């Protein structure tokens, strides 16, 4: 009896879940593995990203029949933001589809570091959009890795430029105190060398404060903040660390509008738990928040109204949902660029890599995509896999994120030499040699 009930229950569950099923890999499709984390401690960040991705790909399939008529197929794999599970997922999915996986979005700096050495061997493009190894922005050393529209180092420099603007010029930074609170992991440490260089150049006093994984305990950090009273705080946090930091900042009465998170520390899930205390908190981003763009109308019309949405309609416009959309759009446009050369058919990883390297996303194209003003145009080249894209600052008003700045250019003359230097170091570690971009087509 009970067994039957169980079986029926399970069957019902499967039937109920059927509409949520991803498009199965088919003939004549281009396969993209999605490493997602819908469970575990980082799920609040992982779910909106994954939904944004899936919704945009569903939109392409429903509205245009795929990219230039070639359907996009994908399969999700749960990583729980865990490096080992992520690698397992990658190994499992890299052979699916008619031409194998063409690109992968690891959505974890840890997993990105794992996959970078595998990419040239498996011929799979790694698109770590705004995360992963900053040094990989030098395409001469890392042909298979792309981290446009901008990387952690550019972001840190743009945030310093923004702080300078607020203070009345970069020269006014002299003697100011800026603290960087970071997740004590490769990801969190990324911005440190750039900040140190800038501190020397502009004469501000930089304090580096590490918070250990997972970041639920930050009392000692905020005690230091209280003693130090920095003029500005920049944070590179992730997951539960962000909301704890915002609550702690409120507890020590730190002025919220001088507290800036990086783009992984400025999502809706980070500020909502802190309630009113989070009002005024700022964050960096490289795309607009909200649903005030044509592309979202299209998603509602072609995806949600047909009952094919991955999440809730109301969750559209959240910072991380939009990030998923922008990430999917970049991927799709790179594939489209490759198709212009190699034809409208399922492409190989090598062909898609060519597409990424020759991506030129203009203002006009963004408008065609219904994303005018949603993000900045990007042009990628053999040398530059980052595009050195500008950064926006958004502010939380207690209900939603609003943009409070124009696009702020990173301090490229500081960042780019450091990237080239680091690329040599990281590239040599892997036994790479620099390729000659003048010989590439």
């Amino acid at each position, binding site marked *: 009896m009970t067994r039957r009930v169980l079986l029926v229950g399970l069957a019902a569950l499967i039937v109920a879940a059927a509409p949520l*099923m991803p498009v199965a890999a088919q003939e004549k499709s281009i396969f993209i593995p999605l490493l997602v984390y819908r469970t575990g401690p980082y799920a609040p960040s992982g779910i909106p990203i994954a939904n944004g991705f899936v919704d945009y790909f569903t939109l392409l399939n429903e509205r245009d029949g795929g990219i230039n008529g070639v359907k996009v197929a994908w399969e*999700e794999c*749960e990583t729980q933001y865990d*490096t*080992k599970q992520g690698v*397992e997922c990658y190994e499992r999915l890299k052979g699916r589809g008619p031409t194998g996986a063409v690109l992968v979005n690891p959505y974890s700096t840890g997993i990105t*570091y794992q996959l970078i050495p595998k990419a040239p061997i498996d011929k799979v493009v790694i698109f770590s959009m705004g995360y992963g190894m900053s040094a990989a922005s030098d395409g001469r050393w890392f042909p298979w890795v792309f981290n446009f529209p901008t990387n952690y180092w550019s972001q840190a420099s743009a945030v310093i430029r923004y702080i300078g603007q607020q203070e009345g010029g970069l020269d006014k930074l002299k003697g100011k105190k800026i603290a960087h609170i970071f997740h004590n992991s*490769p990801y969190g440490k990324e911005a440190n060398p750039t900040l140190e260089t800038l501190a020397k150049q502009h004469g501000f006093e930089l304090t580096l404060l590490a918070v250990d*994984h997972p970041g639920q305990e930050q009392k000692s950090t905020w005690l230091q903040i209280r003693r130090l009273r920095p003029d500005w705080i920049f944070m590179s946090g992730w997951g539960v660390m962000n909301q704890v930091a915002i609550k702690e900042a409120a507890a020590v009465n730190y002025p919220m509008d001088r507290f800036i998170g990086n783009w992984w520390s400025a999502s809706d899930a980070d500020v909502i738990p802190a309630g009113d205390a989070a009002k005024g908190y700022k964050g960096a981003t490289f795309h607009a928040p909200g649903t005030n763009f044509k592309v979202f109308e299209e998603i509602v019309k072609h995806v949600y109204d047909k009952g094919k949405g991955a999440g809730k309609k109301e969750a559209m416009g959240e910072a991380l949902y939009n990030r998923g959309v922008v990430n999917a759009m970049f991927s799709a446009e790179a594939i489209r660029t490759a198709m212009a050369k190699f034809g409208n058919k399922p492409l190989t990883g090598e062909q898609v890599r060519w597409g990424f390297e020759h991506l030129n996303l203009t203002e006009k194209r963004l408008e065609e995509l219904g994303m005018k003003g949603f993000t900045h145009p990007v042009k990628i080249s053999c040398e530059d896999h980052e595009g050195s894209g500008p950064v926006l600052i958004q502010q939380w008003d207690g209900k939603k994120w609003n943009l409070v700045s124009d696009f702020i250019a990173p301090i490229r003359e500081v960042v780019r030499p450091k990237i080239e230097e680091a690329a040599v170091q990281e590239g040599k570690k892997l036994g790479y040699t620099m390729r000659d971009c003048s010989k590439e087509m």
Partner: protein
Amino acid sequence: MIYREAGQFKTTYAADQAIFPIAQDRVLAALAVAAAFVVPPVLADEYWLQAVLIPLMVYALAAVGLNLLTGYAGQLSLGTGGFMAVGAYSAFKLATAFPQLNILVVFVLAGLVAAGVGLLFGIPSLRIKGFYLAVATLAAQFFLIWLFNKVGWFVNYAPSGTITAPPRTVLGVMVTGPEATAAARYVVALGFVALFAWMAKNLVRGRIGRAWMAIRDRDIAAEIIGVRPLRAKLLAFAISSFYCGIAGAELVFLYLGSAETLAFDINVSFLVLFMIIIGGLGSILGSFLGAAFIVLTPIFLTNVPHAVGVELPVALQKQIELMIFGGLIIFFLIVEPHGLARLWQITKEKLRLWPFPH
């Protein structure tokens, strides 16, 4: 009927004391080891080697190490992840500082460094036991991870704080680094685990192992019959950490390729502890069975829905997977609290009588 030792007479002490006194066992073990060396590198695809077999070998070695300490010497330790990290970071330092040094030598040296650190953190075991010792070793876990995170020297001042396995060859074959084939890395991992499991098996049958077991069963009695607790306990910590250190070095060099401290966090310590509890405390075979259970079951469960053609949303699938996995752990512990190794032993005893139980 097949599994019966009737007619196998032992005429020497050496024959009586062999690891596998029964001829069938001997043949089976030899075949299993030979098959492990030959079959996967030839037949298995990269997914099997990379995602299943290599971690299995690495964790089995760590589990053997912890089993020596916890299962044989009775010292509960939660510092496994920390000791593995010591092995990994010292292997990285050694490999980058002395590029001409053979990578296999690097692994052994890294194990020795870990043994030294383990010795140091074993000192509290002379005064405290049981859960209190577990807490003291927990301190080792947190301290070591903090240290590697904090001091840039350990990662050669890489801004990201990650260590990356440099490419190295053994006998002209690339075994570490991105160019190394999964098969080559698997064979190295298997070679280490086979060698060290064989050594562990001999260790626990000899004077040292018996001293450990005496300490485990009743330390005062052991002291009275002449076992020196200081030496026995510290030796257990050192040897156990040596194993864990090599496993940690393998984790980075043969399995992950590059890692940060998060790869060695407290979860790893728990995972290895669960492996030996489920596999069987005080059993070398149990370490392998436990590692196989913990590594293979989740991967098996993840692949089942796709294999049978049921497509579930990933989150739901993951939750079901975790529930089944947890359920299986409880099931096995209820069926046999002494672990999978004990189940195997019972099976063997039954097999001796089969098919005529009376």
